[in-house]
């Protein structure tokens, strides 16, 4: 893809998604604790250059859709013992997500 070209957004607000456990080396912004977890898209943040590219000086790549995804704390931590409704919101790039199977 050309510089600044948009990778198409595959998801929209309300979609249930699962975070992939991609085997990408280098600088990634998808923390381990959400890998494999399912949540819901709550916001579309826009298109941004991929930090995986930027970290090695590559500013000529496409822009990726970025979403805010909400996870129930009880889904992230099996022993979470506070509220059922407690949630965690975090930004995830499109290529780290897939439709949730659950």
């Amino acid at each position, binding site marked *: 893809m050309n510089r600044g070209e948009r990778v198409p957004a595959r998801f929209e607000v309300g979609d249930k998604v699962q975070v992939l456990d991609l085997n990408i080396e280098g600088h990634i912004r998808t923390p381990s*604790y959400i890998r494999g977890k399912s949540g819901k898209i709550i916001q579309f943040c826009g298109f941004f250059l991929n930090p995986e590219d930027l*970290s090695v000086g590559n500013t000529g790549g496409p822009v990726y859709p970025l979403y805010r995804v909400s996870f129930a704390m009880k889904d992230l931590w099996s022993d979470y013992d506070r509220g059922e409704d407690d949630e965690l919101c975090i930004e995830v790039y499109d290529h780290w997500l897939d439709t949730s199977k659950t």
Partner: protein
Amino acid sequence: MRGYHDIGGEEAGPVPKEELPWLYWEKKVEAIRNLLGDATRRLVSLDEMRHGFESFGIEKYKRYSFYRRRLEALIDTLEIKGVLTRKELDAEVAQVKADWISDDTGTGAGSHEQG
């Protein structure tokens, strides 16, 4: 493999509340990074700097403070880009140390402060 910075969810002790001062040299590290990363230079982005200190290896990462890590990552990135070499910088540091006169403000009064 999980990076040593990727610590969300790990066990840890109580949050250390002592507020540490932000020292002049630390501010200067941030300032230099901001300038080198600006639109006219684009030499070190925040992403490159983060990648830098994530690539130290656990020993070097543990040895240094937050701002020293940023300084080292800045230098590493500049070296990768061919802007400077560690050898050049070491020679410059040796010169700074030789000229160093510490004063009460702790800013040092070597001749390199001029200009």
